[in-house]
């Protein structure tokens, strides 16, 4: 068994569990805001971007896009104001890491915001927090007020000529508002509908202005990168995936929780070493590696490294780092139905394949689960599921296809059994 605290360096969770870790005073004790001072005092914006590029920091909201590259897309010649938007609408089932960052170490996020704004030439950042995260909202709001008072936010921060305002904005509870362009729409006061792309937010984003959108965890890594250097950060992870990741382990494990581990840790190690193995010594049946949208994996696949590229190569995705473990008591048709119900409930309803398809798929899986389906229903299911992905405005449709499709393809015999049971009854 690996002992987390002994062998590895924590970055984002370094203050977790400390008393009053959310307060400015505690944060300042551990070199707080020194990275911001360094960036603003000694580095040019271009140098900051370069450093982040070299660190191999990738978007930890789920897409894994190289962060420094994303910042580089902001057209500096554009005379419009630039915005930074922090995506704290953590809605992916199985994911609960950003919540801890916001509640345990909000100043790490704020320091990251300052550095990022400096790098992209923005003077205003919005933090869009999931509506249900009341405590996170309160903690972050307090931290923002503290930072204003201490001169880390506002006009001419830390004795420089740099101005920055941070606005904390709660969402209203729609999963789709975690999709970056739906988030922008929502932030602008409209219904959370994803936008057609291109243009991407870097060119036309919030209020029609160039905008960088990053996840809470991503931006929380920025200050340590500036403090300790890109090479240090890159070395922590594996190839093209710098740093650590927060893995949220839930389901049938002995020690569910948030684990900060280097990119490249295997799924087996996370489940059996860190999360204490399967509950009651039962056997693993299936595991979702990156939030409910990620295709499900079977026990023979858990030696995969948990970085973006490795998971992609086996047909799944690292996503949001939400690991949902299912033991051998799990009814996989039921699990598929729960996933399908989630998608049907959260589809924004803008474009037709996803709007109509997600509900149809749910009703169909539900019918199979309840023993009301016939063999042709199961034959139709994969085709219907497949018709959604690739045909929609945003990636939600792809998630329906990948997620629900994976249950059917990997556990088809369980679906067949439900149908057989029905045929026998009648």
């Amino acid at each position, binding site marked *: 068994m690996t002992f987390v605290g002994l062998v590895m360096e924590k970055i984002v969770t370094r203050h977790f569990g400390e008393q009053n870790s959310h307060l400015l005073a505690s944060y300042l004790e551990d070199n707080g805001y020194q990275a911001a001072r360094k960036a603003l005092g000694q580095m040019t914006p271009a140098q900051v971007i370069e450093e982040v590029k070299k660190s191999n920091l990738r978007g930890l909201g789920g897409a894994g896009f190289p962060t420094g590259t994303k910042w580089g897309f902001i057209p500096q010649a554009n005379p419009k104001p630039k915005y930074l938007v922090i995506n704290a609408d953590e809605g992916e089932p199985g994911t609960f890491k950003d919540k801890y960052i916001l509640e345990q170490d909000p100043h790490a996020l704020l320091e990251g915001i300052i550095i990022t704004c400096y790098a992209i030439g923005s003077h205003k950042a919005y933090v869009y927090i999931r509506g249900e995260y009341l405590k996170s909202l309160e903690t972050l709001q307090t931290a923002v007020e503290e930072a204003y008072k201490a001169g880390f936010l506002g006009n001419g921060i830390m004795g420089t000529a740099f101005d920055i305002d941070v606005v904390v904005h709660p969402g209203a509870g*729609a999963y789709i508002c975690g999709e970056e362009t739906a988030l922008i729409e929502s932030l602008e006061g409209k*219904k959370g509908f994803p936008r*057609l792309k291109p243009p991407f937010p870097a060119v036309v984003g919030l209020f029609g202005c160039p905008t960088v959108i990053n996840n809470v965890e991503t931006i929380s890594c920025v200050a340590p990168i500036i403090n300790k250097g890109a090479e240090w950060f890159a070395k922590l992870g594996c190839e093209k995936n710098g740093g650590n990741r927060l893995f949220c382990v839930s389901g049938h494990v002995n020690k569910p929780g948030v684990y900060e581990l280097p990119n490249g840790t295997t799924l087996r190690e996370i489940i059996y070493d860190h999360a204490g193995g399967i509950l009651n010594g039962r056997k693993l049946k299936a595991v979702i590696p990156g939030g409910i949208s990620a295709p499900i994996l079977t026990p023979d696949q858990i030696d995969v490294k948990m970085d973006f590229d490795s998971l992609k190569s086996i047909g799944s995705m690292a996503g949001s780092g939400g690991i949902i473990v299912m033991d051998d008591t799990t009814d996989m048709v039921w699990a598929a139905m729960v996933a399908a119900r989630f998608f*049907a*409930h*959260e*589809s*924004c*309803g*803008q*474009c*037709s*394949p996803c*709007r*109509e*398809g*997600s*509900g*149809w798929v749910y*009703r*169909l899986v539900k*019918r199979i689960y309840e023993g009301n*389906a*016939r063999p042709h*229903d199961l034959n*139709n299911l994969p085709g*219907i599921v497949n*018709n959604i992905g*690739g*045909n*929609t*405005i945003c990636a939600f449709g792809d998630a329906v296809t990948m997620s629900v499709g994976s249950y059917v393809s990997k556990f088809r015999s369980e679906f067949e059994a439900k149908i057989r049971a029905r045929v026998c009854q009648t």
Partner: protein
Amino acid sequence: MPNVTIDGKQIEVPVGTTVIQAADKLGISIPRYCYHPALPVSGNCRICMVEIEKQPKMQIACYTPVADGMVVKTNSPKVLEVRKTVLEFLLVNHPVDCPVCDQAGECKLQDYYMEHGQYDSRLGDVKVKKEKKAFSIGPTVMLDQERCILCTRCVRFTDNITKTHEFGVFNRGDHSQLDIYPGKQLDNNYSGNVVDICPVGALTDKDFRFKCRVWYLAQTKSVCPGCSQGCNITVEWDKMRPHQFKQARVMRLKPRQNPEVNDYWICDKGRYNYHFIDDNRIQHPQFKDEVISWEKAIDTIVTVLKDLQEANSTNRIGVLASAQLTNEDLFVVRKLFKETLSGALIDFKLPQKPGDSDNFLMKADKNPNTAGASKILEANIGEEQILQKAKQGELDVLYVFGHDLVKLFGKETVSQMARRLKLFVYQGSNINDTCSYAHLNLPSSVYAEKTGTFTNCQQRVQRIWTAFLPLVESKADWEIISLISAKLGKPMNYQNSQAIFKDIAATIPSFSEMTYENLSDKGMILKVSGNP
């Protein structure tokens, strides 16, 4: 300019043109629900997906701009498959109640299913039930939420064109439903247009609902006679079932696209202004209370006119022409009353309260041809003087075209005039209070029964086409006038209105070089005089 190849055909289009626009130019029809050329792109229906070479994913044609060298396929197996797929999704929760749906026959779900769908149903599940079916959302439009495919054309129309913001999509996922915002009604000057742009049976027109199946309708191009804007319309009339619906022929009016005049829209005033075509018409020539033949009617007029002509007293003739008449009618009126009977007192403008207007299509001048009347029939006296003279017994003949004098000047004045006049002719299409005072009533045909031209407020000369024959004994105004002229010994020899228009073009400089052919569908602007 980018050069794009669509289904093997090449076209050069301006930068920014989308694939669907380029395809339209080539005559390649890509199916569409949410896309409408006059509305912002929404990209939500997904049926216009096409394959583009070198792009891994299919793209929606309505949003993808063409690039130089782009090669697009709109009929590959992959594309056809996606169309089926999208149709299947759109019909998952659709009630498929075509037999009782007013849109049947002009429904894009039906059309595309026949063209691109034709799959066997895979549905075994209960459909999502939506709240409002046959629900009134305003004075003219009904909403059916379960037929709606949420293309948001109506939302974008009321957001961007009328800017009245009545519609919204409420709820999420397959429970999304189109509705009116709480406390609102769809009651703006252009409400009816949402029915036109709705590709399915979700929004239907109360005025038209259940009157006629659309496949019984014939379409005739025309111009709205409701105001001086001259919006291009299509008169839609029942071509085979004359016994239906109170024997009315016209079932509805629809806007006809003309980017220079009305784009794709018409106002509600114009849209519902057609009942007069079939209702309350003057059907026969009538002398006082007696129905008479056309021959007798013409004789009656000519006898009086001839006397005045011979007595050199044509100045005892008053004519109140009308800007409701076509250019052709007016030209013939001019020939009779300003040439053959020169000296007659003539005007066409009557004091009318300005009607409703807005800064979009509705104009205060409720006549379709004021500009044409001014050019063709220069008035030689004011209308009030004509009436004054009639009242004082200084006129023997008053010839009125369609004006309801009673409504304008009151019973007293009109009955006083009627008593003093030797002959009081009312020539018009519909019965009004003036008819009972006129000595002679002549039935003229309405715009939908004649061919001709109107000149709108932009000085644009636009054609109207004959939808159907004049009702009972009514005749086009120009025909009636030329009968009189012939009887007076001055035959005009016009076979049709086209021949009259030729004469107009030859006589009146601002119309020169215009012909029915080159007016075509979009019309032409009058030439500024002195500047050929």
